[in-house]
């Protein structure tokens, strides 16, 4: 059906580039050669598997990226040993892109350090690897053994996905943010609304947003089952890569979808009608207006995760919290996404504002989102800026997780109950 001249989606172009094939149609399975293989704290599993295979050389150590993010610093002797195994393996194999327990969340660290570039095909041992679409790369999650296989063979099987356009136009009202847009979409389309699909985000709202907000879009596309997500690289992308990640325009190849490419569906959202949203226990697609559950008592507020703990997220929270105090009896845990985010927030005074309001700042990393610290007791409730609220993910199986934007989280930390940020922001 497809020919070389047929209009193609981003996903078709990215997989054709990575596989060397042409004329690929959705549903076809090919071997792709990823540009980056990301593995996080559980890299030790990949190393043990490699040892069992009796293999001692890697296809290309420069494509390996390891980040010790999920359990950092080590919580016991076992995890300390796992970290050491990874550290020593990286040294022995000449893996330059090893980021230790101080670095932060893998996805954010890799983008800040120029490892993720437009047009690349990136695999990671984390389902939220869809986030790399924020820079116009094809990112997708795979299993640990698959990463091991890619270390050795340089390739991995991949099915060409169908694509869906998600067009978001308009300006958001005060109090609503990128997270609210995504919660709205997840609630409308459902947890399996984009299963197996490549989600291409566009529209005037998306084009006007920062790379950080694009990360929030692409990260949360996973919660609709997307295989990957994508925002077309533009001047914003170019500037981020040049100024933040140290990558010049000659260091990548931008892939844009063709006009007339075939899409399974187009989803349209008018941002100007949006209101702050919240996912209520125990599924991410269980989304309501914040106002519907306002007044719900909270025990903890967590501002962290690859979805919403970047610099602008912390800044928004600090703006809301400035001059206020966290409510008595509520723990506000803030976990910056990366050490670079933490350093910047330190320089600009954002950290001081948060601490003065009563927040507890932890080291950069996945933190409570990965169940590492910030646990809940039986019957407690947390409002979190993360991307998942399945039962038991943060401590007791008999606790509840709500998901919101950093603004809603900060406003609720002040009152101690779920609160529409527009009320605090005036």
């Amino acid at each position, binding site marked *: 059906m497809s020919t070389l001249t047929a209009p193609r989606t981003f996903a078709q172009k990215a997989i054709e580039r990575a596989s*060397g094939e042409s004329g690929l149609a959705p549903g076809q*399975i090919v071997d792709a*050669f990823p540009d980056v293989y990301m593995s996080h704290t559980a890299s030790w599993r990949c190393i043990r*598997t490699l040892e*069992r*295979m009796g*293999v001692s050389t890697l*296809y*290309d150590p420069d494509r390996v990226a390891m980040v010790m993010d999920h359990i950092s610093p080590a919580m016991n002797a076992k995890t300390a040993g796992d970290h050491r195994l990874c550290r020593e393996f990286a040294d022995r194999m000449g893996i330059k892109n090893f980021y230790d327990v101080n670095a932060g969340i893998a996805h954010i660290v890799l983008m800040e350090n120029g490892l993720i570039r437009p047009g690349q095909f990136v695999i990671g*041992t*984390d*389902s939220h690897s869809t986030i790399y679409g924020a820079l116009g790369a094809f990112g*997708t*999650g*795979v*299993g*640990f*053994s*698959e990463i*091991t*296989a890619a270390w*050795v*063979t*340089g*390739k991995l*099987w991949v099915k060409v996905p169908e694509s869906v356009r998600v067009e978001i136009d308009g300006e958001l009202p005060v109090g609503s943010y990128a997270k609210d847009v995504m919660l709205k979409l997840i609630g409308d389309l*459902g*947890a*399996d609304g984009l*299963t*197996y699909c490549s989600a291409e985000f566009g529209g005037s709202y998306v084009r006007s947003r920062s790379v950080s907000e694009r990360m929030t879009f692409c990260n949360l596309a996973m919660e609709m*089952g997307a*295989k990957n997500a994508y925002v077309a690289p533009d001047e914003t992308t170019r500037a981020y890569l040049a100024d933040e990640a140290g990558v010049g325009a000659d260091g990548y190849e931008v892939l844009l979808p063709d006009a007339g490419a075939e899409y399974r569906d187009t989803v349209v959202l008018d941002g100007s009608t949006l209101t702050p949203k919240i996912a209520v226990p125990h*599924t991410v*697609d269980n989304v309501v207006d914040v106002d519907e559950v306002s007044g719900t008592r909270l025990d903890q507020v967590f501002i962290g995760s690859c979805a919403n703990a970047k610099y602008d997220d912390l800044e928004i929270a600090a703006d809301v919290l400035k001059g206020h105090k966290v409510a008595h009896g509520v723990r506000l845990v803030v976990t910056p996404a990366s050490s670079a985010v933490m350093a910047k927030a330190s320089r600009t005074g954002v950290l001081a504002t948060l601490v003065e309001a009563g927040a507890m700042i932890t080291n950069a990393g996945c933190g409570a989102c990965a*169940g590492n610290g910030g646990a809940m007791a039986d019957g407690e409730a947390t409002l979190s800026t993360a991307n*998942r609220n*399945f*039962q*038991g*993910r943060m401590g007791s*199986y008999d606790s509840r997780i709500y998901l919101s934007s950093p603004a809603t989280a900060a406003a609720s930390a002040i009152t101690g109950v779920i609160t529409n940020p527009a009320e605090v922001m005036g």
Partner: protein
Amino acid sequence: MRFEGKCWIFGDNVPTDRLVKPQYVFEPVEVMARHVLEDLDPDFPLNVAPGDIVVAGRHFGQSSGRAIATKALQGTGIGCVVAESFARTFYRNCFEVGLPALEVPGVTALAGAGDVLRADLTTGAVTNTRTGATASGAPADRFLVEMLEAGGLIALAAGRPELFGGARAR
């Protein structure tokens, strides 16, 4: 690649967090298997028998792409898992660990709890042996069946050294 066994039925969008509850993720596979899906059906881990078939609704195995979820299911000795659709990381992980998985739209409608189903990975067909009802999905790709026959991705790789000795392809 054919399977026949008593079926256990689960709903839509079951997350890996509910296949293996977070308090068991650092336990050995045998322990995880003794608790797999207990939250949705307490009888399942207690009474599942080798060769049984797990039937699930849409988007089975969503959330974190933890291969331990597939390993825990495999640890019960089930023959295969048939779902209306899978979360893609879960589907990949099934083949990675060597657990047969088949996607068959309409499977939940034809299966009643405790019915004996017959499933064929190479044709994509599922039959309820009690009612005779059948449904079909896309058969698993040939190389994925090869991966299952080898016992998973790493076992396949170990038995196919030519996959590992080649020069860089580009």
